[in-house]
């Protein structure tokens, strides 16, 4: 019996670039692993660090944040703010004992469906290598069962 860990990943996309890149990957039928589930935000600047904590606490093994390339944000420059926030957030997560590689920020323009897919490929392998996170799993449960949302672990907004 072999066991292949299949990570669960939450991806945040911005409405204008990276969500469209995901759409384009679809229209172009570019394949990537099914481990990522996407949340659409209007802009990467909307990314509240709470969302990332929430995802990790509810059972995600990794989080990928995507936005427009620097200088191409639909709202002028909010992705720079996302970048700064991302770095602070990652520091906090590391402080909590998390591997920094579990949270990643990438840029993908609306034309970069192929790039989007390949970034997902890479990230899934990176998380696979890191192994399960188990944050969302109560101690008495096996990692392979359904995760609980753990409202009690919710980080106050």
């Amino acid at each position, binding site marked *: *019996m*072999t*066991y*292949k860990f*299949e990570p*669960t990943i*939450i991806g945040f996309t911005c409405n*204008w670039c990276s*969500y469209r890149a*995901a*759409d384009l*990957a*679809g*229209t172009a*039928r570019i*394949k990537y*692993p*099914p*481990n990522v*589930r*996407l*949340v*659409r*935000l*209007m*802009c990467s*600047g*909307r*990314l*509240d*660090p*709470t*969302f990332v904590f*929430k*995802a990790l606490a*509810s*059972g*995600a*093994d990794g989080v990928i944040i995507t936005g427009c390339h620097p200088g191409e944000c*639909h*709202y*002028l*420059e*909010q992705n720079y*703010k*996302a970048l700064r*926030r991302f770095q602070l957030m990652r520091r906090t997560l590391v402080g909590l004992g998390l591997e920094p590689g579990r949270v990643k920020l990438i840029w993908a323009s*609306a*034309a*970069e469906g192929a790039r989007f897919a390949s970034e997902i490929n890479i990230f899934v392998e990176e998380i696979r290598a890191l192994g*399960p996170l188990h944050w*969302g799993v109560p101690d008495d449960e096996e*990692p*392979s069962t*359904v*995760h*609980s*949302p753990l409202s009690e672990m*919710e980080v106050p*907004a």
Partner: protein
Amino acid sequence: MTQHGGTSPKLALSESKGEERIGVYVCHCGTNIAGVVDVQEVAEWAAAQLEHRGVVIGREYKFMCSSLGQELIEKDIKELELTRVVVAACSPHLHEHTFRTACKNAGLNPYLCELVSIREQVSWVHTDKAAATAKAKAVVSGGVERVIRHAPLEPLRVPIHPDTLVVGGGIAGIQSALEIADAGYHVYLVEREPSIGGHMAQFDKTFPTLDCSACILTPKMVQVGTHPNVTLLTWSEVEKVDGFVGNFTVTVRKKARKVIEDLCTGCGICQEKCPKKVIDDVYEAGLGYRKAVYTPFPQAVPKYPVMDVENCTYFEKGTCKACEKFCPTNAIDFKQQDEILTLQVGNIVLATGYDLFDARRVTNYGYGRLPNVFTSLEFERLSNAAGPTNGNIVLRDGKTTPKAVGIVHCVGSRDRNFNNYCSVICCMQGLKFAHLVHERTGAIVYNFYIDMRTAYKAYDEFYQRVLEEGTLFVRGKVAEITDVPRRPDEDGHLIVQVEDTLAGKQRRIPVDMVILSTGLQPRYDAKETAKRFGLSCSSDGWFIEKHPKLDPISTMTEGIYIAGCVQGPKDIPSSVAQGAAAAARVLGKIQQKEISIEPVRASVNQDQCSGCRICNNLCPYNAISFDEDRGVSLVNAALCQGCGTCVAACPAGAISGTAFSNDQILSQIEGLLLLNIDEPVTA
């Protein structure tokens, strides 16, 4: 990995029965979704396993977006008294509006409907059916959790400023401007060159009809130039664009012409007297000269010349001023400065066209090294009666008529080393050149092509005509153009080395002149222009349309439209059609006087705001102000565009964003993670 539908997964979400009555609709999209995702299982799973969340019905249907599919939803809303709808189908960018409208028709607030993508994000990108089905369930569950937190919303109404900005005065921009102006609305037409006309103004004849380019273009140029509803701003550039659909503020730099337009009569004496000759790289494609004060061509619109200060003798050496001395109306003004204009417009049409592919990049064709290799634009000028040779097709020496001419198709196009795309017009352009060379010189003409692409009305007939005229066609990609002879008959000629793929042999064909049917490429500054207007370019550099088939005119930025070659290579008829279509879109917007936009906006709960002012400097539109008296921040809804940065930043959680609230997103995450996909597998 296994799928979870069969076994009953432990459901961990709060056990209470949901208060909402939710309908879940899973689309097959023919086999697009159903071929990979077990749609029936997803629908049944949602109905059974999400019942405690309020799902009262789960259905699947062949085409949810069809009228029957929509009626299905409408009927359920009425009969089952649904309060929320989740549709699992294609991208919200495609059909969000469709399903919202269906809900609205059935009396449900449209914002209580959530479209989740299981096509672009699931069936089209995954192959493992079980895994795809499991992911589709997760995506549906995310949508259900999110939609529970939705609130009824009303779209925002914004007024539409009736004026329009058209950028680029080629045939596409001219057409757009004219249609809008003729309908009675004001247009600012901004063109960076001294005259409008674009590439079409450089041509002699246009395929397939061979009517004279100037004869069909000039009247349109004059019409725009004199139209009471058009403000023509040539020798101008857009520097900045602020605002949004309905109300853009555009900053335009009107470069100093050094000629006072109110005084200039366009007599042309300054150009005549100017002693400085400059090679004209733009209009004459480097084959002819212009003066330092010039209009690019006699029929230029407007008629006022511009002074090229980089080449003007007075600006170089401090003396000359011949133009000023001879101008009969004292219209020359050496001190004239650039003007900065601020325009208010409701809509924008971008028609900035294309650049010619730089043939120097194909080094084996020798352009720039072998004098008698010409580009397509050079040939246009050479064959133009108003061009540098008065329409005589001659070699670079300016006098010898060629006896044999080779025309190479697809230069820079359909070539992995340069551009993958087909430039659309080059086959027809190559045929046009073949005809003109035949007609004017009687030379033997060879056309070297990979595939002959003569789609569209009357194009293939033109090809037949050129065939009958005796042009020789060689099918194969030209390997090299050289002037190094191998045989005595090649002496003093250019030799085209080509594999004739129909005859299956290598050929060396001596000719006197080679014309490269160079392709089109995006403007050198297309990326910057796109950025300035908040648009995206494809990886090739052409501007991206809202939908490649159903909406090649709009962009993802509301109120900004594209027309002509800026969207991709095309011929004149298509550029004109797109220009007119963009105008129709703009007119539709103007006539509504105000339009609805998505109510995605931030607002501050003043009881919760601590007055920290962290949000104040985050807003890209300065929509957040601080009320000193009450010590709280306020969002101006008219300025806010809903990016959500302030919502994410507020440490007090005082700012909420409609349609993207924390609640909605956190719930969606929870829903998405309802099923963990990790499972041991036995190999």
